[in-house]
């Protein structure tokens, strides 16, 4: 089967900052994204898990698959937005089946 090379950008960010990041992603012209809620773990900002009362200590994971140019745009635009927030940004190579979807 014919596969097409794309970039997969993954951003783990605190929940309260997520709307800003998603707005930015749409502005870059990416065709879509996936959000996983209630992502927990430990890092620079200590344990980040609980979410029963406040979003302040909870994380979400945002996944975007896009053409290389857009993926780079998302990564570079994410940096100023994440200045004061917990955030992990990674980019990796993936192959997709439906080229025109991304």
């Amino acid at each position: 089967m014919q596969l097409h090379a794309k970039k997969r950008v993954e951003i783990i960010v605190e929940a309260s900052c997520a709307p800003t990041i998603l707005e930015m992603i749409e502005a870059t012209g990416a065709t879509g994204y996936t959000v996983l809620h209630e992502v927990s773990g430990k890092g620079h900002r200590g344990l980040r898990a609980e979410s029963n009362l406040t979003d302040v200590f909870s994380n979400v994971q945002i996944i975007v698959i896009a053409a290389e140019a857009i993926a780079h745009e998302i990564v570079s635009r994410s940096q100023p937005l994440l200045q004061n927030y917990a955030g992990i940004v990674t980019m990796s190579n993936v192959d997709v089946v439906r080229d025109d979807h991304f």
Partner: protein
Amino acid sequence: MFASDARSRLTPWFFVAIIAYRYSLHERTALMAELLQIAAGNLLSPIVMFFVLGVAAGYVRSDLTIPEPISKALSLYLMLAIGFKGGVALSASGITSMVVLALTVAIVLSLLMPVIAFSILRVVTSLDTKNAAAIAAHYGSVSIVTFVAATSFLDYRQVHYEGLLVAMLAVMETPAIITGLLLARRSADASSGEQEPIISAQVLRQVFLCGSVVLLAGSFIIGWTTGDKGMQLMAPLVKEPFQAVLAIFLLDMGLMVGRRLSDFGRVGIQLALFGLYMPLIGAAVGMAAAWAIGLSVGGITLVGVLAASASYIVVPAAMRLSLPQANPAIYVTLSLAVTFPFNLVIGIPLYHAVARLIGPA
């Protein structure tokens, strides 16, 4: 230094004077015994004991958890019930000049309290402006759960309170955020010339359309519109199970507090102490205001509780967006793990005891 010291000293002394005056009219020993009994009764109430169980279990890292959707549902239930009951109570008493006066007092308290908290923090701690302002905003706003626990304390003792208190609760939530942001901005302006709006559209939306605020205000309006007839219909849900649901919710709060106890290191002793005496200052100011406008003993108690409590739902979310440089581990730990337990265990019976001394017979 002297200015803000004097400010924080004056209010409690004003209070002591009133108490001393009223106190001399009472039989001292009998009253003291009764107050001690109330305090002990509060400690041994299921609500406080479930909270303590939660703190202990959370602290020793037990795997006891209340699933997130259930916890959310419990908190929605509490908002709905307290809003509805307040609305029904207000429909019985009607809109009077007292309502307008009380709401004005509530807004002024919420706007003013952060200024007091901020001045104290700047004097006694080495916190920077942003962190001090963020904490100050929390102390001007209110804790809905502390208020709910206080109404349950009063209901249990069959002490009446005005329905308009719930309206005061609703309006006190947000003004403090604006004061907090203004305090934070004072220093920011000096360094950078850029002018951003004090409060962004995103924050405004978050604050006013926050689920708990919408449900509380909405249930209040529904209760107010439907009155006693509505209460007949809703009573099986909003009255009977209320205490038990509150106990389960406080178990969950206890678990969160217990898990946060390890963050104490970041708070430090000076700040932890602030989390204990700031509610006393707040309560003194609030109760003086409630007494001045002529609220009942139950009303004075609850205004004391409102002014003493610190937010940990709406304000942290707003501060995280508006003042991202301030450390959430400090402000959430302080309001959730220091001030909330203090008010729940010691504050509520204490404020009630003072209210009985100064309030109308």
